[in-house]
């Protein structure tokens, strides 16, 4: 069927592989996309896809960090699919690939051990159904930090603040305090009135005591405590401007924008447990007595909710996220809130251990539809909706792993099948390489076109026709001639891309 030369190029392709820092790249294939406001996990936080940029680092399906090489958008008019699971909700085009397990169609499957044997793969959104399992990577990177610097200079006219250490140990006590702050803390940053306050329920005496103890021990600061029995509140004040500014720098300003600093997200699991303890004792709740015992956490900060999700997944705690719309209760405005629930038995046990509570419950159930292995959290799709959509859609191209992480699951980037990389000097192609996912003919025509284009000027290279490529290979079967055409198109696209990038820079 194939000529000897075709097979030769297939078995021994020339100029194969990705090129570092190419001057231009051309790709051909079928792009698939996400809606503009879908959030994806850029390092360090979730960002809407339309605001991502080249060179940003992104998390891929295997929890590795990779660079965005390209962002593309196009106009779309047609069906989109909205897929929801316990971790979030994403709308995308039906052809987009999702990292998932497809379950055989019988109801008892979850109860068998076979589910552990299913092999995850990339499935088109349109082929997934409710109950199918999507995978969420555990971000396992660990980087311990022993000390942190408080590099906030004392203000010129600050005579009140006592000196606090320039460097403090990042230990479990500090992390617990951070947790309290993220949940209950507040910063007042006005001239001559810069302090940290914690608003606690009047019953939370233990926390008051703990904050007092930690503050004294780590910063040498005495706290001021003010009880407001009318509101059932007790407020703990830490009067120190430098510390307050330091906390603001670390955790952001205002409850809606609170977030956990990056270096904490990669601390060892044990230290993070202390943070979770502080967080949960602050804004969390745990009720082991109800039927279906449950723990919950509420915050109005989107970023904080997402980060807690990632932290809990690291601890192998199965959770579900809920969004609560803005509402009015008894005349009080409640902002949009994010709620995290933990209800599965094994997960509750882990959480109880972190909180130092004895786990005892009769009515809990073991999770069979969600589970962990060493690398992933497996959770079922809870809802799929098909909708009509007209507007822009976006896609990314990610280096190396070709995938990126959304709120709810991992997505594959575009489905291109042939890529040509060029190095150009004085309008001459001095180096060229290819990557092709395809048949014998696609691979050998890719290989051949790199050989043909190398050393040619851009004008000469543009003249290469698919017939030239086919002839050069001896002969291609008629049905395979389009492969040569694909290679030619990829080359022309690369040269065109080079032209437009040049006009931009000059």
């Amino acid at each position, binding site marked *: 069927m*194939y000529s000897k030369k075709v*097979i030769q190029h*297939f*078995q021994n*392709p020339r100029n*194969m*592989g*990705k090129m570092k820092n190419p001057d231009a790249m051309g790709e051909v294939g079928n792009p698939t996309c996400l809606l503009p406001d879908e959030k994806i996990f850029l390092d360090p936080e979730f960002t809407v896809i339309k605001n991502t940029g080249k060179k940003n680092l992104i998390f891929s399906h295997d929890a590795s960090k990779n660079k965005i090489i390209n962002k593309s958008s196009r106009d779309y008019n047609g069906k989109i699919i909205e897929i929801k699971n316990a971790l979030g909700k994403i709308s995308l085009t039906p*052809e987009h*690939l999702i990292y998932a397990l*497809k379950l*055989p*169609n019988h109801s008892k499957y979850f109860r068998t051990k076979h589910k552990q044997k299913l*092999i995850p*793969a*990339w*499935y*088109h959104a349109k*082929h997934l159904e409710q109950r199918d399992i999507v995978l969420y990577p555990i971000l396992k990177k660990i980087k311990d930090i022993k000390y942190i610097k408080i590099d906030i200079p004392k203000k010129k006219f600050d005579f009140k603040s006592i000196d606090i250490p320039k460097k403090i140990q990042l230990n479990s006590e500090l992390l617990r305090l951070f947790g309290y702050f993220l949940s209950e803390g507040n910063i007042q940053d006005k001239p001559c009135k810069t302090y940290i306050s914690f608003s606690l329920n009047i019953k939370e005496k233990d926390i008051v005591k703990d904050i007092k103890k930690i503050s004294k021990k780590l910063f040498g600061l005495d706290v001021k405590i003010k009880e407001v029995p009318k509101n059932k509140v007790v407020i703990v004040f830490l009067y120190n401007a430098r510390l307050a500014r330091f906390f603001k720098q670390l955790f952001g300003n205002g409850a809606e924008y609170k977030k956990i600093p990056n270096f904490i997200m990669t601390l060892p699991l044990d230290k993070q447990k202390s943070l979770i303890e502080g967080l949960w004792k602050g804004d969390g709740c745990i009720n082991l007595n109800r039927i279906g015992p449950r723990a919950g956490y509420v915050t109005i900060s989107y970023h904080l909710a997402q980060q807690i999700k990632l932290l809990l997944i690291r601890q192998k705690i199965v959770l579900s996220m809920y969004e609560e719309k803005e509402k009015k209760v008894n005349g009080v405005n409640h902002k949009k809130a994010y709620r995290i629930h933990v209800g599965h038995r094994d997960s509750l046990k882990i959480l109880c251990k972190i909180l130092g509570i004895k786990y005892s419950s009769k009515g809990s159930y073991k999770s069979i539809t969600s589970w962990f292995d060493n690398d992933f959290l497996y959770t079922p799709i809870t809802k799929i909706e098909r909708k009509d959509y007209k507007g822009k859609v976006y896609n990314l191209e990610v280096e190396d792993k*070709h995938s990126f992480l959304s709120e709810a699951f991992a997505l594959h980037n575009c*489905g291109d*099948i042939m*890529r040509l990389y060029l190095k150009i000097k004085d309008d001459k192609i001095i180096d060229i390489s290819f*990557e*092709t*996912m*395809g*048949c*014998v*003919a*696609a*691979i050998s025509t890719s290989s051949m076109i790199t050989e043909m284009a190398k050393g040619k000027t851009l004008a000469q290279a543009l003249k290469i026709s698919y017939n030239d490529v086919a002839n050069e290979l001896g002969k291609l079967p008629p*049905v*395979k001639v*389009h492969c040569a055409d694909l290679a030619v198109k990829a080359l022309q696209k690369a040269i065109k891309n080079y032209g437009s990038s040049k006009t931009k820079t000059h």
Partner: protein
Amino acid sequence: MNKRRFVYLDNAATTPVDTAVFKKMQPYFFEQYGNPSTIYNLGIKAKQAIENARNQIANFLKCSSNEIYFTGSASESDNWIIYGLLSNKKKKIHIITSVIEHKAILEPCKNLEEEGIAEITYLPINESGLIEINSLEKAIKKNTLLVSIMYANSEIGTVQPIEEMGALIKRINSKRKEKIIFHTDAVQAVNYLNCDVQNLGVDSLSLSGHKIYGPKGIGALYIRSGISINPLIHGGGQEKGMRSGTENVPGIVGLGEAVKKVQSSKSKVQKIKVLRNKLITGILKDIPDSQFNGSLEKRLPNNAHISFKGAEGESIVIELSQKDIFVSTGSACASKSLSPSHVLTSLGLSHEESHCSVRFTLGRQTKDEDIKYVLKVLPGIIKRLRKISGR
């Protein structure tokens, strides 16, 4: 000189002729070459050989030998049942078949549809590759004349619930004047599944020689007695006037022997299944991002159908072929029409997944070392192709 060793894992495409079968055929080429229609001894011997083969097949299908007709291929058998039933009818008829039938069923159906002679319902399959029995029940209409469902699929090897369908049609027929005829294409099934036509409740069944270690160019059609069907090929009136043309005596003898041999080779089925499972688990274990397609339980024991992400099927086939391993793919690139296999797209495989799919079909001759060799060679091939594709 040593014969070059190769690993043949495309037994769903065709099988080698069993040596015992070939030995039985041989005399009919050289010694007993008489025309069965003649009345002298040499011809009578040939005629007897044909009847012997007919008995062997009837014995296998648990039917009467006069319900068996020899044809040139299973494709002919399939065509015959469709066109042969048709010519009796004046009104527009309705045929029910499935989206994953062999082309020998689909193409005639399409043709009838285009000509406006018949209305066709194509039953869908679920993601396990199986037809839901209630979809069949729902599809049946007043003018339904024929239901044709493949027993086992050639590509993904899934086995359809023919027995249940047979029972359903029987039940429906008991209340109808115009009986529905139930046909099954059992070409892939004969080797491994029970083909007792009474048990299955089918009215007709087609089978082929070259898929069951018999010769190529011979097929058969079972038609339940009482069902009237017109011949497609007219001429010398062979096969009781139903299929003219001088009988392919060695082929018929070979088919009979091959069928007989299937009955006595049941013990080998388990061995094939063990090897097949070894192949599947080995591939899924050693090659990341590989995916097994279709139901594992409701499947022929010799079939493994796997997609390798980032490596294209035709490339894999050609690479394996360079290592003397012969398999097949449903990739669009390997088909004449450049569209992916209709079976795989019906199964719900994406364009890319069928693009990356490879079918391994084992046979009686498959040895443990063959599987070991494949498992040794394949990971490297996939790795190389993924390197080229950059995935």
